[in-house]
């Protein structure tokens, strides 16, 4: 495997061939905030939190989807980028009902953590406060659209890891919703295997277990499953 060298925030770093800028940054302990990215799932480049500056291009690039190229010069934390990231988090907080005090994911929520780490302590935008429904038809879990950030992790884990493709999106723009099957109640979904992977990858309190006060997050199971599959650990 050939190795690439590039400059990140003024430091020379090495990268495996084909690695994304995000992977390189993580390897070298350079923090880049992410939300739609989830280790082990495909990338969609949707949240735009991981945008970085690449010298020679006037377009910002999503670190999760941009491959490291020999000789690249990348900046991950300029004041401009930090300001854009704070605004994106603020936009998310204003978009639906993210009231931490009454949320099951309080203290385990990735959106909350992002806001805290970026110093977003108040939201300047008009709260949209949409009155969205909840789907409690599944025996074990609940989907609360009011807390969904549309990262599509649940859609991808269900399709790519579980192979069920129960979840997908409907509607567009601010009316986009995650739906099960063809917009049937989750509890009546014929494709859902009740594996619970979607609940475990959800970054907020949008998918949670009935009767719990804190979501049980295990971010490593997806990478483990993927690795096991690639190395054929279960093949006899």
């Amino acid at each position: 495997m050939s190795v690439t060298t590039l400059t990140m925030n003024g430091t020379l770093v090495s990268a495996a061939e084909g690695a994304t800028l995000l992977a390189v940054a993580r390897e070298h302990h350079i923090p880049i905030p992410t939300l739609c990215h989830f280790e082990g799932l495909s990338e969609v480049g949707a949240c735009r939190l991981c945008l970085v500056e690449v010298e020679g291009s006037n377009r910002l690039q999503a670190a999760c989807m941009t491959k490291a190229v020999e000789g690249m010069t990348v900046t991950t934390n300029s004041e401009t980028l930090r300001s854009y990231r704070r605004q994106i988090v603020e936009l998310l907080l204003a978009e639906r009902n993210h009231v931490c005090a009454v949320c099951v994911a309080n203290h385990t929520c990735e959106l909350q953590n992002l806001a805290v780490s970026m110093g977003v302590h108040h939201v300047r935008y008009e709260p949209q406060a949409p009155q969205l429904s909840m789907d409690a038809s599944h025996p074990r879990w609940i989907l609360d659209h009011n807390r969904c950030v549309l990262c599509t992790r649940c859609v991808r884990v269900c399709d790519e890891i579980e192979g069920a493709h129960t979840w997908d999106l409907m509607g567009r723009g601010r009316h986009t919703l995650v739906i099960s099957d063809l917009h049937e109640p989750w509890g009546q979904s014929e494709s859902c295997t009740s594996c619970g992977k979607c609940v475990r990858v959800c970054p907020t309190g949008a998918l949670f277990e009935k009767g719990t006060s804190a979501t049980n997050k295990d971010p490593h199971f997806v990478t483990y499953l993927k690795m096991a599959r690639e190395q054929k650990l279960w093949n006899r």
Partner: protein
Amino acid sequence: MIADDLAAVRERERTAISLSTARIAVCSAAGCISTGGAAVKDALGAAVIAHNLSGSVRVLGTGCLGLCHAGPLMRVTRGDAEPVLFTKTTPAFAERVIAGLPSGVLPLEQRCDLQQPFFTRQHRIVTSDAGIVDSERIEDYLAAGGYTALERTLAELHPEDVVREVSLSGLRGRGGAGYPTGLKWSTVAKAAGHGTFIVCNADEGDPGAFMDRSVLEGDPHRVLEGMAIAAYAVGAEQGYIYVRGEYPLAITRLKTAIRQAERMQLLGHRILDSQFNFRIDLRIGAGAFVCGEETALIASIEGKRGMPRPRPPFPAEAGLWGRPTLINNVETYANIAPIILHGGAHYATLGTERSKGTKVFALAGRIVNTGLVEVPMGMPLGEIIFDIGGGIPDERQFKAAQTGGPSGGCIPAAHLDLPVDYEALAGIGSIMGSGGLIVMDETSCMVDVARYFMEFCRDESCGKCVPCRAGTVQMHGLLTKMTHGTATDRDLALLEQLAELTTRTSLCGLGQTAANPVRSTLRHFHDEYLAHIHDHVCPAGVCAMNGEDPR
């Protein structure tokens, strides 16, 4: 069919045309059909039979004749005499025209002066067949020289020669961004391997735009021919036309045209008896503006939800099903046959240094001649609006011209001498766009206009990325506050900041350009924003300023 057979069809058709004493073209594009054009055409047909003129009078339904506001339009050509154009025709009028033909007396009223600047100042390349070619007859298109360019391409040119000719022409993509077409073709041609696709983008989603629709409805074979030449140049055997479902007439005409071309071996296997195979299929869009964006369009053709993905990789390298894919706009393809026939260098004599050829514009809004026009690149905006467009009705004052739709900007009177050119328009904060040109007079409020376009982008955002999905909602809210008279300086600052955020961080062109109407009106009409915010006054008198929506 081989070249000789094709020549025979052309000859037969031309003889028939020369033997006819009159050719009567009724505009059969959507504009004139909506004002009753189909009934006029039917009445002409019935009258021809009633007056026993079937052998000598030909009635045809053609592409858009331009003056859409005065439809249904009828163009009568008799022998070598100057054609006569009638406006606002009716079935009864059609009967009178036919009744007068034997004695050579045509009605004097409802005539339109063909020497007025609206007609004389235009330069028709893409729309040259309007009034001459029946949209549903391939024989008409052949008689007018159609498919000669494809014939010559297959017989005389290597694929590289075609690409070189297109590069030489300086043609740039007419879908909005103006990417050099020759360069795109050579990139796709060089992308290795089998299974290259070509796509014609006929999604035309800009509000008020109907250039592509007119070309598809009026002259579908011109687009098919352009696509076939492109396919030969880049080595593709399969093409798709992605046409929006709201264009049922265009879909019907395309289906007819494809069937006719296949029957004559101008599409399909071994085209004109050469080694070249090329098939075209239609894919119908379901009315999402974002599906005009090329990566979303690809997802949609693949049967997935029409959402964009980050580029690179560009479709030229990895498009449909991961294969190299050439995507061009309808009008781009419609320029190809003339470029091959007359040479790229000849095409490049028209236009400005970096914008060559002509551009079709849909004139709309507060302008006398609403309709479709084709002008050489480089023509000053003011000439299009005042000479060709006839100026502003009701003795009102010109205020702004909006180009580029929801991705474009508003151009104030101070820039009326600006030439129509990709760089010049971008230089003052607008874009060429796909050809929508909306004229506004002093009764339009620029803040309200910005709000209208923001509402469009908010509703058409696909919802994938946060800055566009949520940013357009907030910007629309701030603009609404301004039109309600309840905004403050802080709101203006927030708006400016959000405009920068969505432009710089959105995933696709929709979000990246959604703030353009805001930014351009902030640039050229800043005082109007301040009047709304500081004085709680709408200078145009549009906004209610009492917490309610305008109008």
